[in-house]
């Protein structure tokens, strides 16, 4: 399992997709927004949190079909299926690798980019925390969607369509936490909800995804 | 026709949209049913012949 994880991380870094792609996309979104909406500081501070969350979500979507796509095409996935590692483990390892190469860098970069959107230090901290807790869910749900659309040619759009409704609860609570912090309210409630969704996703989705993988490989 | 008062457009368009959608979906199901019924019948005839 650790080997699958390591292999995926190394592959995505070497192929130049993983780390760079999501992060650069995130950067582009954040940099372009002030140009689109005008440089009004108070407006940027108001919409900043939600915007950073939206950017993170879209950046996550961008690399989803790579999680299983290549391995499915060149037969690696068939090999993995016959290995002693259960498919639930393959799914978890691949989701973790995806998170490490997209979710984690985005969560760490968000406070830095938050400065551009006039977020103060405190709000940026909460933003970073909420992204750290929330992006694992995005990766988990995303790889679940990827297992569903494995056999589909050009499944990228379909994948986004399937995954978007599932992302909504995480997005709501994530943005809610940061907004609450920006307004000076308590933000623990939404954060607890995000963590609950993440834990629930870790508990349930491996079984559904492994089932979908088995169906696709049969 | 009942007196719809100042909301006549709203009520009429709500009923209009609903009927339109219901008719479209019904025709969709009906057409699909007819096509497959005919195709299946043709294949069954060939099989029996």
């Amino acid at each position, binding site marked *: 399992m650790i080997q699958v994880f390591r292999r995926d991380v190394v592959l995505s870094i070497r192929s130049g997709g993983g780390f760079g792609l999501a992060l650069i996309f995130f950067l582009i979104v954040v940099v372009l927004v002030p140009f689109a909406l005008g440089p009004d500081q108070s407006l940027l501070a108001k919409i900043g949190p939600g915007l950073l969350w939206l950017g993170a979500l879209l950046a996550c979507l961008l690399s989803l079909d790579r999680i299983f796509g290549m391995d499915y095409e060149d037969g690696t996935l068939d090999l993995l299926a016959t290995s002693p590692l259960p498919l639930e483990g393959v799914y978890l390892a691949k989701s973790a690798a995806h998170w490490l190469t997209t979710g984690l860098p985005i969560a760490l970069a968000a406070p830095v980019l938050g400065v551009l959107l006039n977020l103060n230090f405190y709000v940026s901290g909460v933003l970073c925390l909420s992204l750290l807790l929330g992006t694992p869910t995005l990766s988990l749900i995303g790889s679940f969607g990827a297992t569903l659309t494995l056999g589909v040619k050009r499944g990228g759009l379909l994948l986004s369509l399937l995954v978007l409704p599932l992302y909504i609860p995480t997005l709501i609570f994530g943005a809610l936490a940061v907004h609450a912090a920006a307004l000076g309210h308590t933000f623990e409630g939404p954060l607890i909800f995000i963590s609950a969704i993440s834990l629930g996703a870790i508990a349930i989705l491996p079984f559904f995804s492994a089932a979908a993988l088995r169906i696709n490989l049969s | 026709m*009942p007196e719809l008062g100042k909301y006549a457009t709203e*009520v009429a368009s709500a009923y209009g949209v609903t009927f339109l959608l219901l008719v*479209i979906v019904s025709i969709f*199901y009906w057409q699909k049913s007819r096509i497959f019924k005919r195709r299946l019948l043709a294949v069954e005839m060939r099989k029996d012949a």
Partner: protein
Amino acid sequence: MSIQSGIKYFWSSFWQLANPKIFMGWSGLWLPWVIACTVICLSTGLIWGFFFTPDDVRQGSTVKIIYLHVPSALMAINGYFLIVVGSLFWLIRRQHVSVLAAKAAAPVGMTMTLIALATGAIWGQPMWGTYWVWDPRLTSFLILFLFYIGYLALWKAIEDEDKAADLTSVLALVGAVFAVLSRYAVLFWNQGLHQGTTVTIADGVNQENISSVFFQPLLLSMVGFGLLFFALLLVGTRTEVRARRLKVLEAFERAH
């Protein structure tokens, strides 16, 4: 016949419907009657509601939209529920008819969602002053609409029928979990404009929330929408069963 043996008989004959041949015979027999009842209930309910009910004191004549909005919303949710149940039966018992019924329910469920959204928007403009608000109920319905589109798109995208049935069933189950989650998430996110549930059977009896002048035609059109849904479901499932058989026969022809 005692009640127990009656229930037992019902379930044994219910499961027999999983046999495509028995299903086709049974549905073919009942379909004309279901269609006839649909026409009667729907036309009576809507004509009664449209022509012979008074205007509401506050809402004026827009109250007449309720005879379309509430039944379609009800069937939109029931449609998704039916997809989940059909998928579950398919995954557990591997009976084709149940998953084909789930597939057949999707387009009409999607249409019902669209009707509920459209009539709600038309009603919202004069009453709330806007076509659309990001209110929990409205948002949930928009999410429901997205689910329907995704479900149908996945069916379309996968060539192999059994594989498509399996994968869409998995999607429907996970979707159901997240549908409940979204429902509660949007409640936190925005306290809405939408009024609480207006119609329950108990209200109709107690006449607290809604007066019986409006309730009786509403009930009738709810039954009408339900029957229409059922009729289209039967037609659709029959089509899917036929399509399945057609595919088998054509493959057989090619092989010989």
